[in-house]
């Protein structure tokens, strides 16, 4: 092996280790952070949080607009979810038959009811003109508004919280789009002395009397708001109504304590299992077992680095898939060693036996791993086809399996070969 190849392997291993080290590791009193500050992302089950599934009611949506409306709904929900400051929320649309679903994963959120309320909210702002009807004599405070909105949330460019300059009370300031400003000027001009109703969904919020024409495209909604309520209202108006009505059909609530306990147990179990495998290999294959152990460790670190780089969200089934792929990674080595032993039994020289053994094992390794990869790809459903699994459990498992098998092909064959060359050439 040339010096350059050795250096390349060394650089690869060092880079992998650099990526793998956890945050704020202290070595010789110096704090070292991982390359590019990468972090392992934990899924819903390990971090705790909420898993919500909404069904979209697409009955009244034209087929032409369907895709666009679904995307808009998804984006809006994501915006509302981001309001919580959730890290790594995932909002996904799913099609199954004629049904459309939107899956919302909120790691770290345990107050589900609040989340459901906010996601499902349909904050449709509308301005309606007062109409004159025959007032019942008994009620002096009776107001009637046209059922047609003259101005809607779509005409609002921006809504934000402001404070009344005299009373200091929170209010929501609206900034209309140029089109909206024109409409608003028109409405205020037409209705001087009359009331204009401001509605959120079908509920009246306030109905101020118009004093004069407002042409600058700005308006404020005053009312008995707390700062928080005003902020939420502004947020909702900005968000607008969901283009497609949704209904909650599934909700899952995972306590983080359960996840933390599960993960620490599984990590411990993984270490025990891995140690057993390492010891077994040394006991059975001696020096070669040691080589395979080394390449197995490199495999582990490499896979971890790949998880970090591609920000794979690790779930419980994903961890299980990864641990299983460690077992499968050993297989390539066992296959190679058995073949080498076979050649040695035929009284071949060590160097030749290694070469022949590798050559013969490679066919079996290739075919066996390819079939696993094919199945894993179908399960992972990379093109997100509607007729294949789209739920995270199966896909997470498949993804770690794909990464595991691919990485093990590299370490089990390439790295093991290098290591054998190093160990046996020095003799």
């Amino acid at each position, binding site marked *: 092996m040339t010096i350059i190849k050795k250096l390349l392997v060394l650089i690869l291993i060092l880079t992998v280790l650099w990526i793998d080290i956890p945050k704020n590791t202290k070595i010789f009193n110096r704090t070292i952070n991982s390359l590019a500050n990468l972090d392992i992302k934990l899924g819903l089950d390990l971090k705790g949080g909420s898993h919500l599934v909404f069904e979209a009611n697409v009955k009244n949506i034209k087929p032409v607009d369907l895709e666009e409306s679904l995307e808009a709904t998804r984006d809006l929900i994501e915006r509302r979810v981001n309001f919580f400051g959730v890290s790594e929320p995932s909002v996904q649309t799913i099609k199954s038959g004629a049904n459309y679903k939107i899956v919302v994963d909120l790691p770290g959120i345990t107050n589900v009811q609040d989340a459901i309320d906010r996601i499902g909210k349909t904050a449709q702002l509308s301005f309606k003109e007062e109409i004159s009807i025959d007032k019942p004599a008994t009620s002096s405070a009776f107001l009637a508004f046209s059922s047609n909105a003259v101005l809607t949330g779509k005409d609002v460019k921006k809504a934000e919280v402001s404070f009344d300059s005299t009373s200091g009370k929170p209010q929501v300031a609206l900034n209309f789009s140029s089109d909206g400003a024109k409409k608003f000027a028109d409405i205020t001009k037409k209705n001087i002395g009359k009331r204009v109703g401001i509605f959120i969904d079908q509920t009246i919020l306030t109905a101020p009397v118009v004093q004069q024409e407002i042409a600058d495209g700005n308006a404020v909604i005053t009312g008995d708001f707390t700062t928080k309520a005003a902020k939420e209202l502004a947020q909702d108006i900005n968000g607008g109504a969901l283009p497609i009505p949704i209904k909650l059909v599934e909700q899952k609530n995972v306590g983080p304590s359960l996840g933390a306990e599960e993960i620490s147990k599984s990590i411990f179990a993984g270490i025990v299992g891995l140690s057993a495998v390492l010891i*077994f290999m040394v006991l059975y294959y001696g020096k070669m077992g040691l080589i395979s152990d080394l390449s197995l460790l490199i495999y582990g670190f490499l896979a971890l680095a790949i998880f970090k780089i591609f920000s794979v969200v690790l779930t419980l089934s994903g961890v299980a898939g990864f641990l299983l792929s460690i077992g499968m990674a050993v297989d390539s080595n066992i296959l190679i060693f058995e073949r080498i032993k076979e050649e040695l039994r035929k009284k071949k020289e060590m160097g030749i036996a290694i070469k022949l053994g590798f050559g013969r094992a490679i066919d079996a390794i290739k075919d066996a791993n390819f079939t696993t990869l094919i199945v894993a790809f179908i399960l992972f459903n990379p093109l997100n086809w509607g*007729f294949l699994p789209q739920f995270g459990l199966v896909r997470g498992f498949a993804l770690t399996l794909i990464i595991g098998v691919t990485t093990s092909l590299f370490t089990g064959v390439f790295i093991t070969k290098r290591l054998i060359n190093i160990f046996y050439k020095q003799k």
Partner: protein
Amino acid sequence: MINFLKYKFIYLAISLFVIFVGLFFILRFGLPISIDFVGGSNISYLLSKSPDKNQITQLINKSGLKYDRVDINKNVLDLKTESLSEKQENTLRKKIKAEIGGKVDLLLFESVGPSVGKEAINKTIIASILGVIAILIYIGIAFKGFNFAFSAILALFHDMLVLVSVYSVVSYYFHAEIDTLFITAALTTMSFSVHDTIVIFDKIREYIKEQGKQNIRESTNKALTETMVRSLNNSMTIVFMLLALILFGGSTIKFFIIALLIGTITGTYSSPFVAAPILVWLENRKKK
């Protein structure tokens, strides 16, 4: 060389026995399907003291709630009930608190509508069928013979049957359920089974290349003798990993790992004892 093929009827008897026992359990006791598929609520509470099972069942009966299972494991109370809303769960928790006293903490509350499950199953079945077809084509081309492909797929079906059979016995004695994780385990078994079979077939392919298909019986016996150690060692490493996870791992994935263990064992067993005899049988039939 060991004449493995001589005992093919013993292998057949073993496989049939396992599958028949499983079928008996399934027909007699049924397979408990998780709420992933039928819809309902899974609730786990952590209590400050161990509750009495009778007390809990009576309380739930009085509330008029349908339930499927009440499990008590020291201070943890696991319930499987009909689909509950958040409010209903809250009421139930309050009632339990009033009855048992102390603290009652919610560990887990899951509710799933049945439609979700049906769709997931259908999609997974479609994916599996596609997977089987892909494997069939791949092996058929890579081994230049569809007898190889058919025997590998038959061994795969054998493994699926054994997995469901043994799991049904486990589920009867330990309350394991068929859930989405089980589906994942079945899919893993699928790819592992083929993975393992291919290694043996690769060896047979090598002998056929050397000696032609004239004496497929002898080639197969030779291949089995030489791959036996590798097969055992390979499964051993996976079994170590899985056993460690069963013994020390978290309880959520316990039955998942058990299913994987069953799959690993039957996947290893079926390669030399199901796939290889079928391959020899198919090849010999072709000759006649």
